[in-house]
């Protein structure tokens, strides 16, 4: 029995199809990431699953419950950090944890939770004086007060510096080792690659690709490419004298390697061209390349708050 099951989920805001018929499931203990530009429908999806937003059409179950109608029971078993997590200004993290635990009727050990999210140093600082990373870690700790089976993290590292981001990642990895199911939305490819067992790429309310990052790369990527830094005549030479598929942007030449033999042909041709060249690399499409291909450059600057 999967922890999360979504079938044909739709949600409209007026004429806007925020979520447009998506289906996926998340196994227990899995880290699943919804990846997409701003406005893709990630937050709407995750909020429907959290029981914070009513779905339009389709079926959604989390831990075998309908999130909206069984929210009261479900919320005792899930942990959530909303996007752009904020809290009351004055409690310290320690006080916040005791307070939030009390709302669940649980007596929590704040120091233990703070240790788990690596926030012991800031235990007694007012929330309003915490840094972005510290706030986010407190959000993580709060989502754990009820020992949840499923944790929903909506863009947990947006706006954090690289160091703080890595600290949050560390906490997410721990959640996985503890056997919790984690659903993570992000618009950072690196984050999805680092943390997720499986990724679904969303755009305009639809899932455009889903699988492990390797699966997505090999399915949607363009295979291996040889990239050579070269100015001037190399591109022209290759186009005129070989049957290789080549592209160039002035500073570098990209040769598409359709099979292994292409690599030798390319190397020979480069040598014969007599052109000045350097920094030869062979790589395959990264998740980023696939993402940009599927979502398009315009997706990277989409509007906030889907």
């Amino acid at each position, binding site marked *: 029995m999967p922890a999360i099951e979504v079938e044909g989920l739709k949600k409209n805001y007026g004429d806007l199809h925020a979520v447009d018929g998506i289906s996926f499931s998340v196994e227990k203990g899995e880290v699943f990431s919804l990846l997409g530009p701003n406005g893709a429908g990630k937050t709407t999806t995750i909020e429907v699953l*959290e029981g914070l937003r009513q779905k339009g059409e389709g079926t959604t179950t989390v831990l075998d419950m309908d999130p909206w109608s069984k929210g009261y029971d479900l919320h005792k078993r899930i942990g959530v950090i909303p996007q752009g997590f904020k809290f009351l200004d004055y409690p310290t993290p320690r006080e916040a944890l005791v307070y*939030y635990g009390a709302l669940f009727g649980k007596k929590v050990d704040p120091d233990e939770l703070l240790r788990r999210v690596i926030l012991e140093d800031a235990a007694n600082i007012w929330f309003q004086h915490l840094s972005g990373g510290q706030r986010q870690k407190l959000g993580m700790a709060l989502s754990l007060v009820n020992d949840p089976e499923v944790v929903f993290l909506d863009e947990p590292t947006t706006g954090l510096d690289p160091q703080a981001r890595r600290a949050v990642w560390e906490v997410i990895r721990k959640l996985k080792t503890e056997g919790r199911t984690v659903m993570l939305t992000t618009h950072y490819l690196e984050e999805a690659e680092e943390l997720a067992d499986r990724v679904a790429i969303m755009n305009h309310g639809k899932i455009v690709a889903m699988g492990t990052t390797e699966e997505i790369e090999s399915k949607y990527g363009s295979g291996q490419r040889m990239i050579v830094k070269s100015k001037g005549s190399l591109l022209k030479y290759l186009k005129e004298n070989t049957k290789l598929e080549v592209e160039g942007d002035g500073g570098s030449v990209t040769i598409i390697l359709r099979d292994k033999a292409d690599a030798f042909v390319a190397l020979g041709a480069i040598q014969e061209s007599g052109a000045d060249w350097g920094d030869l690399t062979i790589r395959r499409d990264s998740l980023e390349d696939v993402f940009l291909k599927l979502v398009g450059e315009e997706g990277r600057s989409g509007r906030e708050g889907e």
Partner: protein
Amino acid sequence: MLAELGVYARGNLRSREGFFFTLVFPIILILLFGAIFSGGSSGPTTVYVQNLDTGPTSSAFMGALNSTTALRLVSVTAGQNFTQYLSSHSSTDGIVIPQGFSSAFIANQKVNVTVYGNPTSTSSAIVSGITREIVNAFNLRGASGAHSVGVSAHTAVSSSYKYIDFLVPGLVGFSALTSPMFALVNISSTYRRDKIFKLLSLTPLTKTEWLMSKIIWYIGTTAISFILMSIVGIYAFGAHITFNWGIGMFLIIGPFFFVSLGMLVGTISNSPESAAVVGNLVTFPMMFLSGTFFPVAAMPMYLQGIAHVLPLFYMIDGLTNVMIYGNFGPAYFDVGLLLVISAVTFALAVRFFRWRED
């Protein structure tokens, strides 16, 4: 500099809050205070009259009192204990025409009309002044022109009331209004913006419990402000306060109502900015027109009419009745009314205030 001025002016005009405080609010204030202190059309003073005489002169005297537009006469039957009657109606203004008034006047014998009043109150001064004028007119009309009718002044109750006596319940009402209103209007809109309600909705806490916790807090703060103001009122200004359980009713029902109202206002507004504007529109008229700083009776009639539709008026009126006069009859009405509107407001606030979104 002009560019800076322009951008600032535009910013102020675009922000509804800025607009309200910059332009609309001063207008409201000047209208309010202008109306209160112009006093030109202040309503008639209610005065209780007990005519113990049956003769023609006392009837003529009553007629003369009635003919002035400044007084509104309320007849008290002869059998009533007059001072008790005044006290039970939370009034200090009364006139008693003694038995044998007519015959004494005709016989040119000395006779006194008794005027009850509060020496410090303007309404009492009006009643006393008008009565003396009428008495003078009667004396001139009398057979000999001798001054046979006199006026004896009495203070209505054992102790006379001072402004501070009315200010203490007024300010207790004021604090029961302002702190919960401003706080809840702000909380209800910013918590929604900051998704703190979402966070709370993920816990087993219910909306009713959340709102009740705020009500309890503000009952506490209102009680504390009552204690502080009573101490200052009594020891610094010599206020007369009767401590009784009736005060407790108002210290509970007041915050209950205003927390619910603040929540309702914040809930139906779209943004923290518009919530603040709506909140101020609801709060400020109540703050000034419900008898917080000035007795409602001193206001022009049309403002008194407005006061009577403001919930805070009933809290302050009730508090004044129990704290100053120890007069529970009218206070029960005030509490009853507040209970009904509080229950409705609370229900509406819980109904419209949503943790989650559709």
